[in-house]
C-alpha cells in the first residue's frame, strides 16, 4: 500500500517543527504543507490536496488561545467544516478531513495526533476496499 495511500497535512509554520521523518514509521506517503498561519489555509487548499492524491487531509493549528494571530486556528476549523460539506456533496466521507488543535511548539503532540488520524483513515480505507 506504500505510496498508494497518501495523507496530506496542512499546518501552520509555527505550531511545531515536525518533519516527514518524524512520521516515517507510517506506511504510505505523508505530505506536509506549511502556511504562515493555519488561518491562511483555504477550503480550496484542502480540496486541491484531495485532487493531488490525498486520501485524507489533516489540518493542524495552535490550540485555542495560543494562536499567534489570535483566531487563525479557529478560522481553520471553520474552513474544515466548509470542506467537509463539499466533500460530502461530491461523495467523499467528510471524516477524511479533520481539524486538530495541537500544543504550540510541541512536535510530540502533533506527531501523535497525525499518527492517530492516519490509523483512523487507514481503517476507513481498508473497510472501503473490502466492500
Amino acid at each position: 500500500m506504500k505510496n498508494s495511500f497518501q495523507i496530506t497535512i496542512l499546518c501552520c509554520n509555527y505550531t511545531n517543527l515536525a518533519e516527514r521523518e518524524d512520521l516515517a514509521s507510517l506506511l504510505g506517503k505523508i505530505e506536509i504543507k506549511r502556511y504562515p498561519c493555519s488561518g491562511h489555509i483555504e477550503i480550496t487548499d484542502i480540496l486541491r490536496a484531495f485532487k493531488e492524491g490525498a486520501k485524507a487531509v489533516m489540518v493542524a493549528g495552535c490550540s485555542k488561545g495560543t494562536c499567534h494571530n489570535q483566531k487563525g486556528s479557529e478560522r481553520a476549523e471553520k474552513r474544515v467544516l466548509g470542506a467537509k460539506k463539499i466533500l460530502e456533496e461530491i461523495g467523499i466521507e467528510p471524516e477524511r478531513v479533520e481539524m486538530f488543535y495541537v500544543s504550540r511548539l510541541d512536535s510530540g503532540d502533533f506527531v501523535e495526533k497525525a499518527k492517530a488520524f492516519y490509523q483512523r483513515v487507514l481503517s476507513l480505507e481498508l473497510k472501503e476496499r473490502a466492500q
Partner: protein
Amino acid sequence: MIIAERRPIPEILQNIEGYEKVLVLGCRGCVAVCSAGGDREVAILAEALRLARTLSGKPLEVLEATFIRQCDPEYLEPLKKYKGEVEAVVSLACGVGVNLIADLYPEMRVYPGVDTSFYGANLSLGEWVEKCRGCGDCIIDKTAGLCPIARCAKNLLNGPCGGSQGGRCEVRKEMPCIWHEIVERMKRRGELEKLMEIWEPKDWRPAGGDGLRVRIRDDLRLNGGN
C-alpha cells in the same frame, strides 16, 4: 441586498456533465457580499468541480473569473473572450446575471450556480434575513417601517392573525410576529388609531401581476437608451 445560496454541487455537476471545459463566473455585487458568488466562492466551486470530475475519471478544465457585476451589459462585455473557449458557463450571480447572459450571449450555455433566495439584511456574520419582497407598491409608511408582506408568514395586510402568541408567529415559533411588532410600535408612537384606517386595495400589478416589470427613466436615457 439579493441573497443567494450555492446550488447543490451534484446538480451543477449534472448540468455540465457532457463538457470538458467550463467557466465558473462570479459577481462582485450582492452575491459576493452574501458569500455565495464572489472570488472566494468561485475558487471553491471550481476546485470542487475539478476534484469531483477527477474522481469520476472525466477530468474537467475549469476557468475562473469574477466580474464587477453581471446585471449590466457593460460589465458582461469581457465574457465575449470566452466565446468558443469554454463549452459552458456556471454563473454564481443571482438569477438576474444568469438571465442577462442568456439574453446577450444566446450562443453560450449558461447554468445557475446559486439559488437566488430573497432580499435581505446581513444581521451578523453568516446570518441573512429577509426584509422586503420587492412588491413595487411600498406600504411600510403605514406600518412603522416594518414590512408585513416579506415578514408576515401569511403576507397579511391586516394582522396579526388569530394565531400570534406572545409576540411569536404561529407558523414558526422562532419568528417574531411582525404584526405584533407593528401594533406595539404604533402604540408606542401614539399612532395606533392610524391602523384603523381602511386602506385602498393594494395594487399588486407592480409586484409582477401585470407581467414583466420594467422601469424606464427618460431623464437618464441618451440616444434612446443606447
